[in-house]
């Protein structure tokens, strides 16, 4: 019974010395499955979460994803609840909000925009007691924008800092 050329019966029939390949395959399948599971659990974005800061004068809610991927379109929603009359509401965002991200739209348009000590500020105007102001920012992440950066939010009434929320955004490739 001639054995075909290059076929070694020990190795190719009895599979001698190949015991490692099945465990390696299962380990790779398990690792891939773990990554998929993490994706399912929102580890890689982009499900939004809500962060809240409160004081006697106001409450601030930030609803935005903390984990993103290159190219994603997403929304950040800022809600200001005025517990007392706020005369000159200003929202201050750290530069991480705009770093390598396309800011597609801001609704409603702020009264004024500018820079304050390197941060982005949006003047929203007065908010009467008991009223709510919602600001929507629509972004798209640049594909090369990989890494983690600060994306803090602070609420001011004029020059008085009322509230702040510390957060980061992580962008996966």
């Amino acid at each position, binding site marked *: *019974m001639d*054995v*075909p050329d*290059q*076929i070694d*019966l020990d*190795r*190719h*029939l009895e*599979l001698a010395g*190949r015991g490692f*390949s*099945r465990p390696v*395959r299962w380990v*790779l*399948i398990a690792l*891939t499955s773990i990554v998929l599971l993490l994706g399912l659990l929102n580890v890689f974005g982009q499900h939004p979460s809500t962060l809240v800061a409160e004081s006697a004068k106001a409450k601030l809610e930030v609803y935005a994803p903390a984990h993103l991927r*290159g*190219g994603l379109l997403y929304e950040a929603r800022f809600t200001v609840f005025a517990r007392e009359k706020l005369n000159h509401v200003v929202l201050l965002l750290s530069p991480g909000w705009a770093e390598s991200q396309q800011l597609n739209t801001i609704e409603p348009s702020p009264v004024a925009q500018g820079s304050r000590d390197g941060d982005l500020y949006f003047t929203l105007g007065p908010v009467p007691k008991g009223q709510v102001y919602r600001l929507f920012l629509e972004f798209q992440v640049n*594909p*090369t924008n990989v890494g983690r950066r600060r994306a803090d939010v602070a609420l001011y009434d004029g020059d008085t800092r009322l509230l702040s929320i510390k957060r980061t955004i992580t962008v996966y*490739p």
Partner: protein
Amino acid sequence: MDIVLRGIFVFVFLYVLMRMIGRRELSSLEPFDLILLIVLGDAVQQGLTQDDYSLTGAFLAIGTIAVLQLVVSYANFRFPKLRPVLDGEPIVVVQDGKPIEKNLKRERVTIDDLAAAARQQNIAKIEDVQWAVMETSGAISFIKKSGS
């Protein structure tokens, strides 16, 4: 730089994935497999070049994959010890007309699959086969018994 890094990652990931899913899946190209292949290609392209529509981007992406393929191919040729890892090894699935159950099971090949592959080689009965070897490509080579 970004596209080259993405190209390397995609190549390594696809290479490991292809080795991981096994040769049975590689050998068959049913209509559903064809659709999967197109979907896979589209998903890979999105991750590879993203919003880059430039000729430079396409050159970098294709060039990276082509060079890596060349490197793997050369490593396969130059270093025989790497072949089992990079390319896999053939497996004998029939010896002297008898299917080798443990090897078939390992590659998730049923007797029906084996018989179908034999029929495609104009072999009506497995017992007429001296050797059947599942190659690294997933194809099964049949060597008939002399006189049959």
